């Protein structure tokens, strides 16, 4: 079941795994806020259950992960599983970071809605996250 369209999307951002590079996620968070989104940044070393708990509590329209340590496939898979187990199938997940081109489709095949490798222009990231929030739901 898809959700109603949102005007002021609520975005939950998190750094999963042990990676501490948070320049990108903070810049994206500030740009999303300036564009009118409500942004909740959970911080570093967030586990899948912690992110799911926050997404439930905050009624998130989109969950965004940032990974620059190369473990994007593993942590995205863990989060998507935790989302399904919590009945959050309809909350889209996006991933940004140091992601080699060949892994973009692999992330999408896991169920990640959109991927923003290093070098994606900031306005594209913001616009695509807003579009995803407006569409809602995981079906695509």
């Amino acid at each position, binding site marked *: 079941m898809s959700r109603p369209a949102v005007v002021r999307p609520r975005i939950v951002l998190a750094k999963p795994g*042990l990676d501490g590079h948070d320049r990108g996620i903070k810049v994206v968070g500030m*740009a999303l806020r300036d564009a009118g989104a409500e942004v909740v940044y959970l911080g570093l070393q967030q586990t899948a259950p912690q992110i799911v708990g926050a997404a439930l509590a905050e009624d998130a329209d989109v969950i965004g992960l940032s990974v620059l340590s*190369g473990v994007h496939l593993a942590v995205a898979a863990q989060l998507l599983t935790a989302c399904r187990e919590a009945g959050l199938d309809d909350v889209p997940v996006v991933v940004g970071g*140091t992601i*080699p081109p060949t892994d973009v489709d692999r992330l999408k095949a896991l169920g990640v809605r959109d991927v923003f*490798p290093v070098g994606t222009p900031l306005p594209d990231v913001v616009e695509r996250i807003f579009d995803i929030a407006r569409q809602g739901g995981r079906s695509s």
Partner: protein
Amino acid sequence: MSEAPREVVTDSGIPLQPVYVADSVADGLEERLGLPGKPPFTRGPYPTMYRERLWTMRQYAGYGSAEDTNARYRFLLAQGQTALSVAFDLPTQLGYDSTDPEVASEVGRVGVAIDTVEDMETVFDGLPIDQLSVNFTINATAPIILAFYLVAAERQGVARKDVAGTLQNDILKEFLARKTFIFPPEESIRLVADVVEYASAELPRFNGISITGYHAREAGCDAVQEVGLTMASAIAYSQAFLARGLDFDFFAPRLSFHFSSQLDLFEEAAKVRAARRMWHRLATERFGAKKENSARLRFFSGCSGATLTAQQPLNNVVRSTLQCLAAVLGGAQSIHVMGYDEALEIPTEESVRLALRTQQIIAHESGVAKVIDPLAGSYYVESLTDEIERRAWALVEKVDAGGGLVELLAQGVPQRWVAESAYAYERQILSGERVKVGVNKYTDGSDVAPPLFEIDETAGDRQREKLRARIAARDAQAVGESLADLGRALDEGANTMPYIMQCGRVGATLGEIADTMRSRFGRYREPQPW
């Protein structure tokens, strides 16, 4: 009606004249400069600089298991690299064993996995420690890594006095920018001081700390903030070591520094000249240094990853060349050049070799290393050096007025300065005010990724298998006793270094030692960014 001409500024926003003349430089330049190797060290820490010895070429490397990393080091040394710089994986940096299920996917991913002293021995297998200078990029678990390295040196028959290198061991910049902290600030600084005290007493060729502006710069701050925050860190550490009862001239000669090298060539060279002068003044005026070496700033220059682009990746070779040149013009003691493919993946062997060749070409073909501090006396560079110093002192005063760096970090204040600078930088790229070739100008769709390093997915399993076998074979009672002794040292405030070394000798793991610390110190959670 024509638009007013836009102000021309340096990378960190210092307004520039179209041309500099003799009057651009304030009076008293001779005193502000001195000679190389003489106070205030503006022109370099040593009288002979590259005439006597080139900078150390130190490429940051490490991945997978200890065997994989040993092979990469043999390759780099065979290519003419003159020293090593160890990259550790995140579980090692954050105090987890490779067998911890929570961190399984991170083992060996961004650096080498070190669980026990035996892994350290393998990393340096066939590489005589007494003939190497090794840099360790390690912070929260720095005392454990140093202890493991010293035990590995013992087993090679190397005396402590012959162990050379640098331990990063700068926890304040972890809270500020790099983010691999474990314990709260007070307990973290106590461990930093344990290492510095031990190294100052036992390891005459080893720097127990590298006070670092590099990571704040990579996280987004500008050159002036980088210098100001580094000096604020040096003040905070000096105060902490003095509070422990150490004499300034006991520890200060072995303090080393680490700066970034980015693309505004003259500003980058001026920045480190200003930093040397500032540290001399702090050491002599604020801390009353009596030894000249206490005021002599030596630094490692890391070329910038944040300025490299995923688009048109070969352009990064040119960017790295300029950054390395800036570091040489600034008088760096050792330099790392980034691989051109590092915006996409850890570097291939070919990319690492090209980065090293970049250093070698600048050293041997460009001619810039033939004369010491060749930019001295340039109206522009001297004026810029003075202006960076003036602005960086203003930042140091702001930090002092806020209660010092440790207090401000707890409030999240400098973290916000860095994040705001990073956001401003992105907006300048969006507006076109800042040109990035291949990103917002001269884009031509030729963004094809080069052949990338292929991750060996078996490294984690190989490492876990080895660790399980070692744990099964060790003397469990000796391990339990050494960990209990370490616990008592932690509780009683004794220097932990000898206790951690004993843990390493009997086969205790990095995770077990870190757990012993975690059980007493707890874990730190950082303040919200907004």
